[in-house]
């Protein structure tokens, strides 16, 4: 879940990280904020500046005109319902402060650059010396002294080093306290009067953590934060409910499509690969989904029943990469049980079952009993997708 800039800045304020003075304005509402001001479209997407979503206004009439213009300007498919009006600040320098997870190191990583306001990934490629990073423990957090060590590696010294170290430490607290997957202040401005001011902030909250972040969960449900984008369908909402029935594993992250082949696919990149491969071979997916992390039989059963309940869906394809922590036999049980409880015949309803890995002998024995076509790891995901597409186009 991506927070809007003003929502992120409210959180920063609670952690004593200063932002510019400002207020939000809704359409038709007048602002008493004195110009000159920066007007910033509140949409959940990056690249707002280049897309015309950030404008400066020097006078009150100009502010009125430009506010209207911003409300009428969609940014990457999103239309703002609020504009953030902020003071203009004279800057001496801009910095980049970011925290995210390094999935290879399995640790949070703090990233800093003396060049703020830029695409940090592009900067790291073009001028790797300009970007420094440091892993830290989520248990010990990022104390100021450690943050100062990182910032000093970028060549910052003196009072500014102390200021930046303190802000970075507090940003790490935000990151951990809110179960964020990204906490980024870009740019962090050094004002002419020596204050550090977070000019923009991007917070992404881990969707899986929303149950323990009630305020964020409430915010996610609020309608009218912005317009546009793609609304969650009832079918997808029901799948989310199935996923939340049980804490074990994932079986319910679903995106609906207008096709006739139900998909139970899993494993991050593998599910995307399987989905694309089905389409490549002429199949018409009724849904995208992700399962993994060894979901309970109950959850897979309910998901199977849900996918089969979609009008026009007669067959499902179950395709995963080689699984290690998910058990093949338990997925097979869930799929078969879901089909049986939907009144179907597993032998007819499964287009292909390609889930190799842990407990596959047990799983394949079970599938054999019900006449379900299955394949092991000698059959590629692409070939399994081809078989699934062929099974549905022959219907």
């Amino acid at each position: 879940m991506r927070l809007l800039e003003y929502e992120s800045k409210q959180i920063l304020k609670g952690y004593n990280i200063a932002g510019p003075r400002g207020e939000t304005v809704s359409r038709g509402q007048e602002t008493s904020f004195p110009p000159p001001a920066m007007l910033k479209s509140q949409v959940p997407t990056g690249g707002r500046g280049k897309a015309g979503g950030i404008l400066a206004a020097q006078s009150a009439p100009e502010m009125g005109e430009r506010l209207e213009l911003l409300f009428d300007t969609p940014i990457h498919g999103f239309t703002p319902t609020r504009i953030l009006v902020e003071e203009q600040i004279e800057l001496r320098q801009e910095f980049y402060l970011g925290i995210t997870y390094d999935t290879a190191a399995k640790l949070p990583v703090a990233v800093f650059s003396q060049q703020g306001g830029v695409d940090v990934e592009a900067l790291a490629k073009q001028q790797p010396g300009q970007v420094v990073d440091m892993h830290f423990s989520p248990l010990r957090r990022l104390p100021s002294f450690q943050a100062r060590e990182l910032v000093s590696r970028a060549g910052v010294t003196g009072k500014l080093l102390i200021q930046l170290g303190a802000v970075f430490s507090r940003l790490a607290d935000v990151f951990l306290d809110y179960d964020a997957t990204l906490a980024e202040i870009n740019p962090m401005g050094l004002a002419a009067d020596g204050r550090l001011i977070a000019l923009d902030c991007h917070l992404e909250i881990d969707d899986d953590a929303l149950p323990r972040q009630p305020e964020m969960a409430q915010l996610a449900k609020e309608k009218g934060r912005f317009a546009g984008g793609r609304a969650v369908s009832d079918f997808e909402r029901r799948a989310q409910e199935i996923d939340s029935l049980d804490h074990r594993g994932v079986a319910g992250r679903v995106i609906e499509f207008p096709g006739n082949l139900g998909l139970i696919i899993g494993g991050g990149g593998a599910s995307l690969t399987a989905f694309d491969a089905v389409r490549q071979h002429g199949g018409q997916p009724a849904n995208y989904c992700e399962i993994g992390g060894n979901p309970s039989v109950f959850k897979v059963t309910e998901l199977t029943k849900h996918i089969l309940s979609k009008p026009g869906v007669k067959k499902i394809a179950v395709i995963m990469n080689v699984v290690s922590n998910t058990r093949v036999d338990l997925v097979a049980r869930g799929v078969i049980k879901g089909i049986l409880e939907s009144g179907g015949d597993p032998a007819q309803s499964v287009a292909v079952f390609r889930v190799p890995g842990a407990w596959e002998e047990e799983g394949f024995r079970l599938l054999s009993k019900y006449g379900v076509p299955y394949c092991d790891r000698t059959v590629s995901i692409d070939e399994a997708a081809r078989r699934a597409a062929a099974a549905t186009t022959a219907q």
Partner: protein
Amino acid sequence: MGYFVEVEISPDKCAGLQECGACVKVCPVNIFEKRGGMPGVVATNEDECILCDLCLDECAPGAITIGKKY
């Protein structure tokens, strides 16, 4: 009744909850529950059995039987 797994408790061999009750404690998927002085099988959970045999290791020989239906 499970589609795939059938778990049964033999009342003659089970020592009962007062003396034992290990099956209720060790089962990671809550197949067993307390029913008066004896453990009982939660029929709606039988298909969740992961065949770990922890209950068989803990209980008296023959007190619990786990049968696969495939």
